[in-house]
Structures are given as structure tokens and as C-alpha cells.
């Protein structure tokens, strides 16, 4: 394993402190925790948004702490859900009487740990609501499984629910708009090369020079199938087919697009992929209101990308266009 680290046990701690050193005006650490909150005085009249998960997805989640998005982010060990006590610390450090919305990605561990934290907060009479993002169409949805994974579509939840909370909406309204995003966002990813978890020291799976993994998650967990590597356009077409088969995105609809890098794929390739996304959607009469291309929900050093589509209505569109100012996502 070759990595730019100082020791596998220091990865999360030094990453968080490095993020703070880069963005002292945006984020600060709750002492003795792996929680990042907004720099400065606690808000006084706002529903707070808390997200988090395992580390290794940077800039998620700390990179989205700031005006118009999150109030706190909890960092677990690499690819491991943060523990309930840490999530509870995030709630306590940010909540200001109007309640907290926990934005959870649909993984067994994340759901359990955030639920336990919510129970701890409720015991202290803090009002907590939860939403679970499950946007990955690679995983079949069924009452008999854990359900779909939460991946890059989560960023849209941060952005839109964050804007709603910033406008002063109450907890029920913020939760409702987050759920509207979740109902209208779908994603799918693929990998050209695996990632290596520092503490494990070897790649999470192996691919030959000719193989790619389709339907990959964001933790190196296997995807739906392997196949021979093909062109960017053919790969985009395959992922989009699966997303469009959901029946949510139709002729005349307006959508937001995210082409998200997994960490090891150059922006040039993400833009190449995005061109095909734009062409395919144009061909189907689906209008793109906003496109976001970059590394937002990564998987360490994995090479690959995901595509997310979010169907917009007037409310979602306005909230998506609202200002945001965070280390990893800023718009006027």
C-alpha cells in the first residue's frame, strides 16, 4: 500500500484538522470529537442539519458544513459509520431549540447509530427528525433487503434541505423537502479500479486490466456485475438506462445532474462523461436546469464515477439555486 499518510490510526484526525487549517472561517471541531460544526457562534433560530458517515468520502461530509447546507458533520472511521455518542455530540453542539434533522445514508450501521443518537437526544427533549437517503438504483429495492444505498444524491439533500432551513422553515417543513428530494433523486456508479482502506492495506476488490465493476457503491463493496471495459459513452448510457428506467424522468421534465468522481478519476474524464449525459438527456427531451461535476462523494482512491439525476419542481429548483457557502460547494 502506498498512501500519503502518517499512520493508519491518524487518518481521520489529521484529515479533519487539515480541513480546519484550510477553512478556519468555515469549520471548527467540537473538542474531543470527530464532529465539525460551523465556525462562530451557535445559530439561534434555525433547524440544524446534521449529516455524516464513514470517512473516506471527502469532501463529504465536513466539506458541506456552512451557510445554506449543513450545520454539523460527523466523521466515522474510514468507511465505518460514526458512533451514537459522536452523532449526539453533533446534535448538542449545533441544535438551538428549533430541532435537528439527521440526514442518514441508507446503510445498516449508519441507520442504527444515528437512530441511537436520536434516541439519546430525545431523552434530553431535543426534537430530532431523520431522513434516510437511498438513491442507488444499482441495488434492487425490496422489503426483504436493507434497501438501496445512499450515495452521491445525498449532496442534493444537503443543498436543498439546507437552503430550506436557512430560510427559517420549521423541522417538519425541512424534513418534508428533504423527503421530496429523496423521492426524486436516483444515482448509479461504476469503478474502473478499486480503493484501498488505509487500515486494511489492500484493495477492496480486484479488477483485471480489462474489467470494470458496474453498480459499485461508495465503500468498495462489490457492484452488480463485472464486464469488459468500454467507452465513456457506452458506460454513461448503461448507467443512465438504469436510472431512467425508474420512470421518474420524462420528456419535458427539468432535472439537476451530478457527475460525481469517486476520487481517483480525473476531472477531464468526468467532463467527458457529462457530455454524454447532456446529449442523452437532450435526446429524451429532459431539460437540465443545473449540472454539478466534480468530486463530492468520493470513495478514497477509487477510480470511477456516479451519475445522479434529481427531478425538479419550482420549490426544489429555487432551493437548489439558493446561495450556499461551504468549503466544498459555494454559489452566489
Amino acid at each position, binding site marked *: 500500500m502506498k498512501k500519503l499518510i502518517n499512520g493508519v490510526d491518524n487518518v481521520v484526525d489529521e484529515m479533519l484538522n487539515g480541513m480546519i487549517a484550510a477553512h478556519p472561517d468555515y469549520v471548527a471541531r467540537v473538542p474531543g470529537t470527530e464532529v465539525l460544526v460551523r465556525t462562530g457562534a451557535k445559530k439561534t433560530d434555525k433547524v440544524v442539519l446534521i449529516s455524516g458517515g464513514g470517512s473516506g468520502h471527502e469532501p463529504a461530509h465536513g466539506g458541506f458544513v456552512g451557510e445554506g447546507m449543513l450545520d454539523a458533520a460527523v466523521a466515522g472511521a474510514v468507511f465505518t459509520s460514526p458512533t451514537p*455518542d459522536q452523532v449526539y455530540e453533533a446534535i448538542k453542539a449545533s441544535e438551538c431549540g428549533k430541532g435537528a434533522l439527521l440526514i442518514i445514508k441508507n446503510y445498516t*450501521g449508519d441507520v*442504527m*447509530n444515528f437512530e441511537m443518537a436520536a434516541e439519546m437526544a430525545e431523552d434530553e427533549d431535543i426534537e430530532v427528525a431523520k431522513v434516510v437517503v437511498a438513491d442507488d438504483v444499482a441495488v434492487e429495492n425490496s422489503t426483504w*433487503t436493507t434497501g438501496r444505498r445512499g450515495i452521491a444524491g445525498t449532496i442534493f439533500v444537503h443543498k436543498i434541505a439546507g437552503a430550506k432551513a436557512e430560510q427559517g422553515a420549521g423541522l417538519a417543513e425541512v424534513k418534508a423537502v428533504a423527503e421530496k428530494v429523496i423521492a426524486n433523486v436516483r444515482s448509479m456508479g461504476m469503478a474502473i479500479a478499486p480503493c484501498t*482502506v488505509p487500515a486494511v492495506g489492500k484493495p477492496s476488490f480486484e479488477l483485471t486490466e480489462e474489467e470494470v465493476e458496474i453498480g459499485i457503491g461508495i465503500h468498495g463493496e*462489490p457492484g452488480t456485475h463485472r464486464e469488459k471495459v468500454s467507452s465513456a459513452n457506452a458506460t454513461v448510457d448503461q448507467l443512465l438506462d438504469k436510472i431512467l428506467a425508474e420512470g421518474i424522468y420524462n420528456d419535458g421534465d427539468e432535472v439537476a445532474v451530478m457527475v460525481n468522481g469517486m476520487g481517483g478519476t480525473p476531472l477531464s474524464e468526468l467532463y467527458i462523461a457529462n457530455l454524454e449525459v447532456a446529449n442523452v438527456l437532450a435526446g429524451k427531451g429532459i431539460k437540465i436546469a443545473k449540472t454539478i461535476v466534480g468530486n463530492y462523494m468520493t470513495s478514497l482512491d477509487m477510480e470511477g464515477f456516479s451519475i445522479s439525476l434529481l427531478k425538479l419542481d419550482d420549490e426544489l429548483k429555487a432551493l437548489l439555486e439558493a446561495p450556499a457557502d461551504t468549503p466544498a460547494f459555494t454559489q452566489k
Partner: protein
Amino acid sequence: MATKIYECIELIGNRIIEQKDFLTDLDREIGDADHGVNMARGFTEVLAQIPQDNENIGEVLKKTGMILLSKVGGASGPLYGTAYMQAGKVCAGKTTLAPEDGNAIFEAVVAGIQKRGKAVKGEKTMLDAIIPAGDAYKAAIESGASAGDALDAACKAAEEGVEYTKTIAATKGRASYLGERSIGHQDPGATSATVTLEAIRDFVKG
């Protein structure tokens, strides 16, 4: 001098730490390759933090559960944390345990894990080892076996449960994303639960 309950937890912790790479490798096949790493991190903290001289079994188990809850993460943290805390409730105030107490402990552990994990038997989880182990323990105790012999029966049932997890597809946990592709692989959680039970048996049998 270290108390019995400390020595028992110490043996469990050392066995889990010894099996770190094996458990992680199992998780790499059908999960996200962190089960052994996470459990070992948790038990390293447990061994460093729990008091060696506290005879109160309930308190030591509760503390063990709380440390696992705050150090393990993933799904294993809440599940094992809940298991030890529920066992601690059953043992509240006790400094010794009778063989029959094992039944109440199994029941509380199973109920706690089911509630937290929303899983039942047959979903390729730790419950596929623990539920049959509890049943075998209870049957053995009812037929007059010693705690050690009952734990032998429990471990045998747990091992069979691990073998059974190879034959079924996961419907809970991260392995459920693989569906049918998870068949053929043993469940890492059922395996670590069996490692735990075997450590308890070996401790009880000396």
C-alpha cells in the same frame, strides 16, 4: 487481582483481536472489509478501560457494551454494544452466575439485537449463530447439563449456524446488496458471535 468477569471479557477480547484479519477477510467477500478491524479496535479499548477489580458482572458488561458502542462503529457497534448492555441488565448486581442465568442472558441478547437490527433468523446475520446457540444451551440446561456442557452444545449450534449462513442469501446488512451472490460465503457477524461464545465456553470450562 482480576475478577472472573474481567478475565472472561479479556479472553473474549483477545480471541476477537486474534481473529481480526480472518473476520475482515470474511467481510471483504460480502461486505465492506472492516468487521475484524472494527471489533478489534473496540475490544482493545474495552481491555484498556474496564476495571479489573469490579466483581459486579452487570456493571462490567454494561461498561463493555458502552465502550463497544462508542468505539466500534458500523452495524457491529450498536449490535454488540446492545448485546453486552442487555446482558448487563440481566446480571445487574450479580457477582456470580448460575447455569440458568445463561438462558436469561441469551434471551435478552437476542431480543436486544433483534430490536436494534430489525432482523430475524435466516437473514444471514449474527442471529443465525446466537439464536440456535441459545436454544441449544437452554435444552442442555433443562436436561441437567452443566454450564460448561451446555456451552459446548451452544458453540456446536453456533458453528452449525455459521455453516448455515453459507447456504443462504443475505437480506439484512451490507451483504444484502449482493443478494444471491452472497450465497457460499459465511457471515462475518455470525462468525464473530461464535468466536465470542467459544471464548466464554473455554473460560467457563477453564
